[in-house]
């Protein structure tokens, strides 16, 4: 990707991020932070590729790569389960409310 294309991608992605959550209610701040924490867990893919290109005969590269993938996977898995659990609470709340209205 040449410099200017990269710059445009950067600019458009930044606007998208800003726009996507601009109307979020306060009660979703924490779950949404957790959710976006999960999304940047996609760093896992980058770590996998970095480890995949590492020299199999260099223990230093392998060690760093191993931990990068490990941390990336933890970011993704942990981020998902925590967000899922938080949002699960909201489902429970909705049910109760429907029950109360009867």
């Amino acid at each position: 990707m040449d410099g200017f294309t990269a710059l445009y991608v950067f600019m458009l992605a930044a606007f998208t991020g800003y726009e996507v959550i601009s109307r979020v209610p306060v009660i979703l701040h924490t779950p949404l932070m957790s959710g976006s924490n999960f999304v940047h867990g996609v760093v896992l893919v980058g770590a996998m590729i970095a480890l995949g290109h590492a020299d199999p005969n260099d223990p230093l590269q392998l060690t760093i790569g191993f931990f990068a993938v490990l941390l990336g996977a933890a970011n993704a898995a942990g981020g998902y389960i925590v967000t899922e659990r938080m949002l699960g609470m909201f489902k429970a709340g909705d049910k109760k409310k429907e029950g109360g209205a009867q």
Partner: protein
Amino acid sequence: MTANWLVSMAYFVVAVVFILGLKAMSSPVTARRGIMWAGFAMIAATVVTFFIPGLHNIGLMVLAIVLGGGVAWWSGKIVKMTDMPQMVAVYNGMGGGAAAGIAAIELVRGVEHSAMVSTLMVLGAIIGSVAFSGSCVAFAKLQGLMNKAIRLPQQNTINFFLTLLTFGLGLTIGYADEPSLFGIALFFLLALALGTVLVLPIGGADMPVVISLLNAFTGLAVGFKGFVLGIPALIVAGIVVGASGMLLTQLMAKAMNRPIRNIIFTPLTGAAAEGGEGPQGTMREVSATDAAALMRFGSKVIIVPGYGMAVAGAQHKVWEMTKLLEDAGVEVKFAIHPVAGRMPGHMNVLLAEAGVPYDKIFDLDEINDEFAQADVALVIGANDVVNPVARTDKTSPIYGMPILNADMARDVIVIKRGRGAGYSGIENALFFKENCSMLYGSAQEAVAEITAQIKAMEG
């Protein structure tokens, strides 16, 4: 069609789904759908990566994924709801660490990059390392492993020069043809130290904003790694999170009335609060029986839950008491400060867990005018968010923060573990007011006792 083309196509779809998922997560109705979409996209992205031709070390890769993913999944599953904020900090730090690790491999391999890519790589390495060590400190603070805000002499000067030094060294090794291992190691140590000294002086009360900021940092670091590795999906996902994280940080900071600049450069410290004139007077105590009677024979009660209620796990007891009061014809409402608990929205999650219906939960703007008509404001384990000093005392560090007007109620009952100051280290003027009385004890026990007393009154 080559394998590479298919992988690129899959990454493209993944990036689109991530954006749609985030969009869905910003509305309560679609939020659960959003995280599930994003989850599927993540699995897809991981699986197709194995099909990229020419990757080595597949066995090691699988091992790391199973190990890291498994442990994180398990810990995320068992963690208590009240400890969620620090878990988010931990997982975020790990993402930052992974981004820094990618940069470390590239540097060690000595891959040649253009000037722009090298710069982005160094930036990503620094931001990722800062997010990693900063998140570790944030975790330690929220977990209660580190209670004091540690402030170095000349903090801002140290921060400035450390930042300069880290960038300087980073660019030197980033542009070098064959950077020395020593230089690389020193660079990462400096970057990690930078993250530590940036977060160390910040008090626990400001931690949510800091975690959100570090979350945005990690997003940016991941985006920059996308440029380095040439994976547009990483760029898009990372930068989208970076930008939305920045906005979210601003929203949180606004809810707490603490400009981000002030949080980073002039952190709240206990010392600053002690230096000023604290509110003087005596605190009155009240028995559980009297507290029960005041509420049971009132017509309107507003409950202000805080972190103290959350750590005591008293939300279920509180809901039980609420139902009893409602059966007796008392109108009960919950008033949630924007930063009640440890993070915006945290308290809502905890109350929802206990089964409190949404229509009883009100935020600051909705309910603040109603305190004047309430017979009792029951403050459970909340402190700074009801401190009237924020309205009146210009010298107070929390001056200007929007607070709940609990002091306007006819009677204020505060359930509190002990006499200490709040999370910010500031004395609470509310506790010394004439219409306020204290009920000391853990939220769990105190509320249980009030509940028993109310039951006894039904006789």
